[in-house]
């Protein structure tokens, strides 16, 4: 099957598996909600009697936020603390949700229980491995970021390395599921080799998905720029959430296509032999 066809089919599957998309979207929303609540409380307490609420109604200015951070340093500390905790929780949830989604997508033809049960079963089974993989991936990204010290030319090295690391991370996830392997770190390094030898189609597939994501972002930016200051608040929020939902759909679509394009797990072993 051609890569383009895989890409199209993966979109079809993503739409069919709308429940996974909704889980992905709602998970992100739930993780971000405490920060939203904190910000809302702080802003209401600090600004609701101030001119800034009118300024923000028609446009966006950073100055009040900067002044808030200067005049109430605890606000910055509270946000940083809250963000850190949520980032960790989000990370744990994402590992679980990725495992659940991939498991469901991979074994969806096996009618072995209700959707939620299967999602949680696969999530529980693979989340630990995915977390170990994720830690490895973070190390690889930190290493890539270190090239930034070379100056702007380092950026040219860092960006592709991070993108490739993310793709390799996905390949590793697929391999871990296909092989039912437990060594996330070892599989991660083998996946680099696989990607360089046989990953041309996969990179093209990711390029197509990235283009779709950028297209969606462009559409969102146009709507946001044209409407954000005038549209009713609910409409603005709806546009924003539509983009986040689209983003979630892209992720599910990527996972589905990834499974199709890396459906031969032993190939990783063979690459080394």
């Amino acid at each position, binding site marked *: 099957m051609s890569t383009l066809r895989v890409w199209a089919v993966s979109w079809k599957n993503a739409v069919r598996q709308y429940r996974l998309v909704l889980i992905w979207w709602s998970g992100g929303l739930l993780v971000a909600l405490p920060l939203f609540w904190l910000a809302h409380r702080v802003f209401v307490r600090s600004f609701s009697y101030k001119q800034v609420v*009118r300024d923000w109604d028609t446009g966006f200015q950073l*100055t009040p936020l900067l002044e808030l951070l200067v005049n109430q340093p605890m606000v910055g500390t509270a946000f940083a603390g809250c963000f850190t905790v949520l980032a960790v929780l989000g990370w744990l949830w994402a590992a679980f949700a990725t495992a659940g989604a991939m498991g469901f997508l991979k074994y969806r033809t096996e009618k072995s229980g209700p959707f939620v049960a299967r999602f949680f079963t696969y999530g529980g089974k693979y989340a630990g491995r995915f977390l170990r993989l994720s830690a490895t991936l973070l190390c690889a990204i930190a290493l890539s970021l270190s090239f930034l010290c070379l100056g702007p030319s380092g950026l040219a090295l860092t960006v592709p390395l991070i993108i490739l690391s993310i793709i390799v991370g996905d390949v590793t996830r697929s391999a871990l599921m296909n092989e039912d392997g437990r060594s996330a770190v070892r599989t991660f390094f083998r996946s680099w080799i696989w990607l360089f030898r046989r990953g041309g189609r996969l990179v093209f597939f990711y390029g197509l998905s990235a283009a779709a994501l950028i297209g969606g972002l462009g559409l969102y930016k146009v709507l946001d720029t044209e409407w954000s200051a005038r549209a009713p608040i609910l409409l603005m929020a709806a546009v924003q959430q539509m983009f986040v939902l689209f983003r979630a759909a892209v992720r599910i679509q990527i996972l589905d296509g990834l499974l199709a394009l890396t459906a031969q797990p032993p190939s990783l072993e063979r690459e080394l032999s």
Partner: protein
Amino acid sequence: MTRTLLALCFLTAVSRAQKIFEQPLSPRIANYSIQAELLPAEKAVRGFWVLDWWNATRDTVRELQFHLYLNAFKNDRSTYMRETRGEHRGSRSQEGKDDRGYVDVQSLELADGTGLKDRIEFISPDDGNPDDRTVIRVPLPDPLPPGSSIRLSCRFFSKLPRVSARTGFTDDDFFMIGQWYPKIGVWKDGQWNCHQFHGLSEFFADFGVYALALTVPSGYTVAANGVLQSKDEADSSVTYRYRQEDVIDAVWCAARNVQTSAQQVMIDRSGRRIDVSYLWAPGREVMREHYEKFVPWVINYFDSLVGEYPYPNLTIVDVPEGEEFTAGGMEYPTLITTGSYLGPARLQELIGFHYPEIVTFHEFAHNYFQAMVASNEFEEPWLDEGFTTFLEHKALERYFRGRADGEYADLGGLGFTSLDYHRSSYVTHPRDGTIVGASWVVPRGFFQTALYSKPVLVLGTLENMLGEETMRTVLRTYVERWKFRHPTTADFVQVAEKVSGRDLGHFFRQFLYENKTIDLEVVRIDNEREGDPAGWFGESERMEWQQTESDSADTSAGRYVCNVSVRNRGDGVLEVPLVVRFADGDSATAHYDGSESFKVYRFHAASPVVYAALDPARTNLLDLSFTNNARLKEPENGGIWRMTLRLLFWMQNVFAWLAALA
């Protein structure tokens, strides 16, 4: 004697050079003819100059003083190194044998051949550091009477440091050659004004004519701050001859594998033409189209804002990648160094960072403030950096006017403007020091605020007080009156007061010489219904009982007493309007100058106050917080919902990226 003859031959050769200005623009106190040869293998320049210095004062001068700026990089005991600990703009000076820089005076003679080298004495007028070698004094055999001039010749060897603090070499055969020759100080107020090279100071010099003969090996491209007169090619070298008149310094750049381009810029106001030359470090020529859009614009803008740029040329050096803060971002008369930073223009536009515009506007503005209006950068650094940053700020505001992404950067849809940048710098350090002060006593962490950001806010506030047109006249008059001279802060204050016709002493004293702050706040709004009179009124037989008929919400005229409480949380004084709006759409204005730390304004009106704002137009840019300047009687949360929903959206996206890793 032979050397003197050689010097005269050299002088004869360079004096044939074509004049640039028919009439001198400046007093031409210090005039140099410099012959220099780049020695790439040694990372050095071998030079020889002939200096004609004119004693234009009424004093008899008994000694000369010279700057040997490159000696700041000679060892770790120099005042520069001690003050900076070897770090400048985030870049550390290297400490290897070849990384150090120095200038060695090999000979110093009068025109008659009298040697002065043995008379040289190193001095440290600012801090007494016996190890600092950046200033020398040379007692003269015969005193120099008022109105007379002296001719000296000097041979020197300038070892360039690895590029740091805007001078030196890179590993890619790029040589930025600034502060490279023994340079005479300024005789001012009966003494030499010749400061040591400090960590955060720049320079001070007299105007003159510079004739340069710069020899480089074949294959090197040269850019200098002069008009190219000739280019003579020999077997293995090329000599470039430049001349520049009425400038305070000579600088040049020599590099291999670089590109050059030229652009003619027409000044709309006068029809004059300025030749702009660009030198592009490897890979930077992709920026050419981008620069060619905003450089003509800014030349014309400053011409209309502060006056004529009189020189026929401007050279812009876009320095190599990674050297944006070591060689880039420096001003010299008619030559500026910039840095494209973060690669091509499209990438910068994508992330919304306008670094090339920011740095070019700033450095070109220096061609007015310091290069022409030659204030003392050692003693009053704000006079050039402050005015320059103010011009840069105005240019950014004008150039990017109407664009949603601000002037500095676009942070995910939130424009970060030039004003945001300077205010955020100021409000975090409002009391750390004063603007006026010598560069070496400004607290290290306050340097950016004192010299760059706070002056923008002071001059911006002054502009709002006087009006844009008056401020323009102030700037133009200041430039016109003080160009090719050495003004002080007091001179600027005098010009501002004279042009505006206002006593601005109190304003400048608070914000230039002292660190007074202002933070105005509308504390509360209290509306009280003023009912019909009730009770006994009058005396004796005329005493009458009156009773309020009803408690209905009558809003007829004069039925409300509205108290608006304001306060100044700072100690500065500056009058601003207090604007109140009433429920019926009416408004009233009072004035509050902050001299009383707390004040209640009472308004009798037909309807209650729904909104009160101090300085609603935000004319006082020095106000530490704009957020508390205005208050609504009733809370409104629409804007907060919009902002928090936007934050939620950002957070979801951030977590989505994190999720891709998990």
